[in-house]
């Protein structure tokens, strides 16, 4: 049953690859417009391998293995995502928790939030460059921004929707405000917060690619834009696929992490 559905799922992509390969080789379109999959794969493997032979005096074997262009770019992009994500969450979480608990603060901040929220992080690029120049700072700013809003909005909603019955039960059992916050409000809001973080890291991953096209000189986003200047379509496509796989891995990891933290949650019953 599962083997059958796996086979069915593979049918279309594999078929497409074959048709694409044949069409390219038959000269239906030029290698610049659409290089054959085999060329993409070859180029991809080449960029995976270290450029220089291993020199034990200079670097460890592991570092050498990762010294190829592709591993280097993937690590660069990933570190930016994680750093920007950490900054965004680090700011959004406390602000969101405060806004969720205090109606006053909510009334004060929410209108501003609603005005700023619909502005896509990408629209901040010119301002980010004016403020931070080029290099990592504007990239991190944009990624943090892309993370900030989804996490903030979800955290606020999460805290505000906490069922009052839990609060009453905890007060009845003698909980003070700190215990209430730490052991009741926070876990009760966590499904929302984690959903926000999952959206946030997805946005961060989109933003990192764009930011790298503009502000820095390594990373997957930079690499595919660089490849365009040389008309290396095979390299562009290889880079795109790498970005896709990496995004899938990040989302999958986040989703498994959430499932683990929310194993108590009714919605996860399968």
């Amino acid at each position, binding site marked *: 049953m599962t083997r059958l559905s796996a086979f069915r799922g593979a049918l279309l992509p594999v078929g497409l690859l074959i048709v694409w390969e044949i069409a390219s080789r038959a000269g239906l379109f030029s290698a610049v417009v659409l290089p054959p999959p085999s060329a993409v794969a070859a180029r991809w493997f080449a960029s995976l391998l270290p450029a220089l032979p291993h020199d034990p005096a200079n670097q460890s074997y592991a570092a050498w293995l990762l010294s190829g262009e592709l591993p280097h770019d993937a690590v660069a992009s990933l570190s930016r995502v994680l750093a920007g994500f950490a900054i965004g969450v680090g700011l959004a979480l406390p602000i969101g928790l405060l806004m969720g608990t205090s109606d006053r603060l909510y009334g004060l901040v929410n209108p501003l939030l609603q005005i700023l929220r619909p502005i896509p992080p990408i629209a901040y690029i010119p301002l980010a460059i004016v403020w931070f120049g080029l290099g990592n700072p504007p990239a991190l700013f944009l990624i943090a921004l892309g993370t900030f809003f989804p996490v903030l909005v979800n955290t606020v909603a999460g805290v505000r929707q906490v069922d009052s019955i839990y609060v009453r039960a905890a007060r009845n059992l003698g*909980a003070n405000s700190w215990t209430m916050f730490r052991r009741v409000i926070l876990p*009760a809001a966590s499904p929302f917060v984690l959903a926000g973080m999952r959206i946030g890291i997805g946005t961060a991953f989109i933003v990192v690619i764009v930011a790298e096209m503009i502000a820095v000189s390594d990373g997957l986003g930079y690499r595919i834009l660089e490849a365009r200047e040389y008309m290396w379509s095979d390299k562009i496509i290889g880079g795109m696929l790498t970005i896709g796989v990496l995004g899938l891995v990040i989302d999958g990891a986040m989703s498994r992490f959430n499932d683990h933290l929310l194993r108590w949650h*009714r919605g996860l019953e399968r």
Partner: protein
Amino acid sequence: MTATLMTATAPHRRSEPVPAAAPGAADIAIEGASKVFGTGDGAVVALQDVTASIPGGQFVCLLGPSGCGKSTLLNAIAGFSPLTAGSIRMAGRPVVDPGPDRGMVFQEYALFPWMTVEQNIRFGLDIKGVARAEADAIVARIAGKLGLSDFLGRFPKDLSGGMRQRVAIARILALDPPVMLMDEPFGALDALTRRTLQDELLRIWAEYRKTIVFVTHSIEEAIYLADRIVVLTYRPGRMKRDLMVPLARPRDTASAEFNALKRELAGLVMEEQQRFTQAELTGSSVD
């Protein structure tokens, strides 16, 4: 002979006279309790001038249809919502806020779903700052008492309604409060589970000698459980009848005395139920 034997070995028979706790520690004195929700034309008098004195160790059922103020009164004793007028005192001290000396069991269980059964039972002990070893012992003992020993690692979502309510009771019992407040705790359970838990509650009550204030709209449940039944009127909630149940435990729901009492109470409650229905049909009920 057989009957006496049965009575003697029945699980929830009280064999000794009441208070083992310090005299008065579990007394509740309700005086002129009134509660108005809202203001102006929309104001609803949920509770009006209710006065009652509940001695420690007594099992009291508050009985009445929806909107008779029985939950309002319970919430006031719990300290969740202050009265508009009047006072409630426990052991002589006015009730001002919720506290673990008046453990509450909710109809909706109100277990913390992110905590395991064990963590739920332990929650109040953690707050109280009970030492780890002692808390372990208490949790083990209470869980054993309620048949929860094999479920300590489970999350509430994996338990049936009856098991959840056992956890809710265990969570309260762990703190050994003099008073237990129960807001239609078995209302959402099927009839058989309900009867099992009623017997369990009576057993616990006999063993731990708690004062229990129990809200229900089931006449049979009230007669089966209570020492004393207080019938409240529909809006404004006043005391309509305050009676002692003259039946020995365990009570036989099929006996003539039981049913005579049931008939009498049904008459009282149905009068109020009709007023409730009337109000609902004319649209003056705001619930």
